[in-house]
């Protein structure tokens, strides 16, 4: 894989603020790839994006895009374009004027060419007929489409998206996610996509870069984060619950809840004697009513198809989702099995 964008040893601090915002971040993107930059708020993902775009400058390290070192260049001299969470449309301009804003001001094309490209972009974004409308007449999803089109009109080598869909409602979000993927394929557009939502990251990107406290913890395919987290932080971020301290002895997990052999896990990487957490996804419960495990329901929170229950079981409290067709009341006993596929172990 040849690197189209490479971030090399990026460090960043803010004056008057303790600690590093970014520490030794290394990341490469191939041409035409979408990478999602995922992290909790305050993990430094937006800062990293601003460093790539030139809105912030790093303390140390290099940004190389398409063989060109970008450091020190102002944002307008970089062939990157950014789409923000807020659509940031220019309210004094029409939709078409917003879309062709940059090439118009920079006189990038002849007038006829500009008009043709503008209407092509409107069409690409399913905004035909909206060109002359004022941007105040648009819905939230349309606004974000215009913002996207405005960035694409600059024909950026790299499109930077900073939580572009976070303000939208859930259905619109998935529809636009699909469109962004499509644009990536059709235009071969390289994208760096920042989000705090693991589902969004998994849906949009082929590779996810997970930032944790300013450090790039791991770059991997989305499903690897779900099935094989490498740390407690990662496990928590990707929806694992029920972290039970345990140790590894003779290839078996020993915890307060008892001793288990976990078939299907590659335990070779783990060393006996050290501390680990046993993680169980809440969806792991199955064979409810006939399983080998049993416990007492302490609380039940209906969630549609399932009910999220806290179950007192072998001295621990487990959070598990039980099918809603069984009615669960606090104080009731339930029995269930746990799906070994939804078990995992991380170092503590």
């Amino acid at each position, binding site marked *: 894989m040849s690197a189209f964008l490479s971030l090399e040893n990026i460090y960043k601090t803010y004056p008057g603020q303790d600690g590093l915002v970014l520490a030794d971040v290394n990341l490469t993107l191939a041409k035409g790839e979408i990478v999602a930059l995922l992290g909790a708020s305050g993990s430094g993902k937006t800062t990293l994006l601003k460093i790539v*775009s*030139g*809105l912030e400058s790093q303390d140390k390290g290099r940004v190389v895009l398409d063989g060109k070192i970008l450091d020190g260049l*102002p*944002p*307008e*001299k*970089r*062939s*990157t*374009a*950014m789409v*923000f969470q*807020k659509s*940031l449309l*220019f*309210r*004094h*301009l029409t939709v078409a004027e917003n879309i062709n*804003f*940059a090439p118009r*001001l*920079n006189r990038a094309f002849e007038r006829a060419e500009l008009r043709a490209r503008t209407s092509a972009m409107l069409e690409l974004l399913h905004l035909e007929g909206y060109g002359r409308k004022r941007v105040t007449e648009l819905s939230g999803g349309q606004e974000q489409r215009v913002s996207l089109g*405005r*960035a694409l009109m*600059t024909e950026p080598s790299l499109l*930077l998206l900073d939580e572009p869909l976070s303000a939208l409602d859930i259905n619109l979000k998935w529809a636009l996610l699909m469109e962004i993927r499509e644009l990536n394929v059709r235009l071969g557009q390289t994208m760096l996509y920042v989000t705090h939502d693991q589902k969004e990251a998994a849906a949009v990107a082929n590779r996810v870069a997970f930032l944790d406290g300013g450090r790039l913890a791991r770059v991997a395919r989305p499903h690897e984060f779900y099935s094989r987290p490498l740390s407690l932080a990662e496990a928590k971020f990707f929806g694992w619950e029920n972290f039970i301290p345990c140790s590894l002895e003779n290839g078996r997990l020993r915890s307060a809840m008892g001793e288990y052999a976990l078939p299907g896990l590659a335990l070779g990487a783990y060393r006996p004697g050290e501390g680990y957490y046993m993680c169980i996804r809440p969806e792991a419960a199955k064979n409810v009513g006939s399983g080998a495990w049993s416990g007492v329901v302490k609380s039940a929170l209906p969630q549609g198809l399932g009910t999220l229950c806290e179950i007192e079981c072998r001295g621990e409290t487990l959070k598990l989702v039980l099918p809603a067709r069984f009615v669960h009341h606090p104080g009731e006993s339930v029995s269930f099995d746990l799906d070994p596929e939804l078990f995992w172990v991380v170092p503590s």
Partner: protein
Amino acid sequence: MKRARGLILAVAGIVLLFPLAPLLLWSFTTYWRWPVVWPNFDGGHWLRLIADGRILPALGNSLLLSTLITCFALALSFFPAKILGTRNFRGKRLLELLLLVPAFIPQISVVFGMQQVFMKLGLYSNFPGTLTANLVFYVPYATLLLAAVFEDYDIALEEQSRTLGVGRLKTMVFVTLPAVRSGIIVTGVFCFIGSWAVYLLNNVVASPRFHTLPGVIFPLVSVGNNSYSTIATAIIIYILPVLFLLFITSKALASAGNLTKHNIL
């Protein structure tokens, strides 16, 4: 509630507009004296005042002076106001308070000090000096008004423009200025109207050689024995330009709610 509103507005309308009635009636009268209410029609005062030879040049001076004050005040306050409105830094509250000082302290306490200093600087009784003296009051004022405008302005618009490849200067002209356009208009209108009213300051710092409209009109009442008709005509000439200005910008002023929200006006 609706009836109360109608009543309040009707009374307020009468109280607000009524003072203008004698102006209009008397300025078109030959000779008004007590107790005439409905006089005859005569436009002679207008012709005589205009032919007088003092009013028109003073009107020109005032227009020029207020226009320049407005332009300079906007130009000098734009960037400080942007910083004040969009950034947070230590001492910001204090700076805002200091900017209010020229509006608080009675001008009478300062103008004679200004006269002495301006004499030393060669700015006494000439156009540059008069302009400078007024700017002392209108640059801080415009800075505060514009800072309130910039508090509602999203600086991310500029970041957006620049990441799209548009440079600093073009971003300022095509993004920043249009975004704060109505705020700039309101600030400019208030500076113009404010400076249009300045009498004492101009009288002390500019008097002997530079006449503005209030400087010519003030003596009509305080000195001499002018008829109410002459005075009424002069007042109309004096207030018509600013009234007109307020009228044509009333749409922008309707958005001045944004300014008042920030407790400056």
